């Protein structure tokens, strides 16, 4: 979908020749260290920045995304990390903010029915759609923010750090939601720092390092050590050593279960 995207800010090359593909029903995790260019890539996709070079393919043709509004029209929705919800408004009002039905005499009933239906489809645990967003937990707010983008009927949804700052249960809630999005046939691009989350929901993992592609992994096969290595560009660091140690321990334990012969093989490998 993205081919050879480059973007510089003055003398700083934020992105150099980056490729990224996502297809319907697929969850792509975009990972990388701070400054790797994840946010810049997301902003290119959502129309905030224009690429200096490269093409964006969408559907069957190539498109240009000169503004956020164009991105939305194309069906590329972005949920930024700060969610951008109005805490003083309730869930329905937030979902329909900027696209209220029947502006001069609000159709509150239809808006409420559609809000409930949408949140129901996402199996969201929202106590009531008439409570102010301020009364919701972080995971619930994330759900509302994602549900809001779905009202625009997008094809691709980009989530910027959806699980940062969430607790364990809320993270699970949001990861469930991401699965549900891909079941609905949406392409999902998830920016994340959290390897456990990435491997829990992603189909492929795209690693950026210093503004360049540094590997595309199949999430089912890649290990955390592989990813960390690709992100940091080093195979020897605390994380990979510990991962290696853990793997060794796991394998020894597994070997112990299987018997001595297999243990030999494990040591040999």
């Amino acid at each position, binding site marked *: 979908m993205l081919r050879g995207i480059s973007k510089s800010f003055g003398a700083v090359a934020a992105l150099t020749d980056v490729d990224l593909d996502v297809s319907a029903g697929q969850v792509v995790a975009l990972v990388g260290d701070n400054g790797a260019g994840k946010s810049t890539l997301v902003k290119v996709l959502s129309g905030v920045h224009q690429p200096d070079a490269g093409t964006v393919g969408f559907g069957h043709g190539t498109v240009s995304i000169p503004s956020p509004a164009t991105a939305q029209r194309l069906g590329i929705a972005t949920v930024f990390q700060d969610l*951008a919800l109005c*805490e003083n408004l309730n869930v329905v*009002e937030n979902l329909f903010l900027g696209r*209220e039905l029947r502006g*001069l005499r609000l159709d509150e009933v239809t808006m*409420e029915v559609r809000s409930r239906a949408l949140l129901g489809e996402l199996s969201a645990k929202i106590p*009531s759609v*008439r409570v102010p967003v301020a009364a919701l937990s972080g995971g619930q707010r994330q759900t509302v923010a994602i549900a*809001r983008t779905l009202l625009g009927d997008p094809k691709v949804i980009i989530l910027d750090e959806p699980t940062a700052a969430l607790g364990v249960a809320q993270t699970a809630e949001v990861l469930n939601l991401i699965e549900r999005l891909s079941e609905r046939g949406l392409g999902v691009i998830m920016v994340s720092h959290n390897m456990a989350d990435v491997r829990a929901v992603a189909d492929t993992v795209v690693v950026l390092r210093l503004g360049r592609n540094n590997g595309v992994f199949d999430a089912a096969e890649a290990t955390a050590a592989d990813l960390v290595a690709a992100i940091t560009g080093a195979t020897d660091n605390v994380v990979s050593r510990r991962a290696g140690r853990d793997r060794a321990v796991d394998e020894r334990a597994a070997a112990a279960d299987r018997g001595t012969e297999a243990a030999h093989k494990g040591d040999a490998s």
Partner: protein
Amino acid sequence: MTESAAVTSPEPAHNGAGQPTTWSGRARSRRRVVSDRLRGGDLGLLPVLAGLVVIWAVMQILNPVFLSSANLTNLALESVPVGIISLGVVCVLLVGQIDLSVGSVSGLSAAVLAVLFVDRGLPAWLAVTASLVLAALIGWFYAQVHNRIGVPSFVITLGGLLGFLGVQLWILGPKGSINLPFDSGLVSFAQLQFLPPWLAYTLVVVGAAALYATGAARAAERRRAGLAAASRRLLVARSLALLAGLGGAVWYLNRDRGVGWMFVFFLALVLVLHYVLSRTSFGKSMYAVGGNMEAARRAGVNVKAVLTAAFVLCTTLACVGGMLSASRLAAANQSSGGGDVNLNAIAAAVIGGTSLFGGRGTAFAALLGVLVIQSISSGLTLLNLDSAYRFMVTGGVLLLAVSLDAVARRSRVSHGRA
């Protein structure tokens, strides 16, 4: 008001096993919801209503004339100009801005009206229109300076406070005062025209019936869609309460001169603004801009247009208030809109429960807030206390109201309802 009734009714879709289903149980759960909301800092109009009752009780004890029909009739008329200015202040506070120049703009509008109507001999409607257009332009100018240059509204309107006072003095010229003729429609509207009793009672009945009809239609629509709706009993009780309250007030005022047209005009403006704020997408975008400007922008709300509309509404309403004030006084002079008009209008909005932090408040805040302010002022005048005491008491009440706002906000934050 309809909002809170609908919110407090428990939603059937989420009725867990623990939810009581009997009538008394429902009533109890509704009471619990209400008390939770109060403790959570969602005070609504309750503090200002309580304050009004306390002030009226104290003033009546100090001087038995206070609650007489004659005094209340006056009180109602007197609160209109500042009340209308305060409606505009509610608009700018809702979007998280402030207008400190409402007093000067109202004074300037009064002066423009008087100069065009009396000195230049233009017809009244033309003078009024010109004054309104000028005020709207002032609001538009504020908005442009704010949107394009990014000067905080506090500073822009502080400049306007001084600047437009200067313009007012300049156009009034060396005379400094212009009298409006007593036989003009403007003065008689503000001073002499009262509703005939039959019309006043009819309006009360129509109002109560309309409240029931809209409430019932809404409830029926919600029920058809399978949503929780206010019960018929609640709707009837609400309408009867309104009927009794307003009917009693009209009866009491009719023992004197009755209900002034000017007050009815004010009530109509309050209701229109209430509708705009609570039932239109423009109103929702005003709350959104005041709550989280960046979120509103990203949701596709034209933030600059909303801010412009708020400033224009504010200065235009200040102009209406200023013209009515001049009509009531039958003169525009150098002190029109001066003195405590500015701060009373802002204080009324805040006392009525409009948050200075933006995104919170209703049109009724202006109505109730200005009644509090005018009650204090009228009560102290009846006691023959001069303005020194009036300023001190009003200042104290304002401080109390803002403290209540700040405490309620802290409580909202700690209850997760910021």
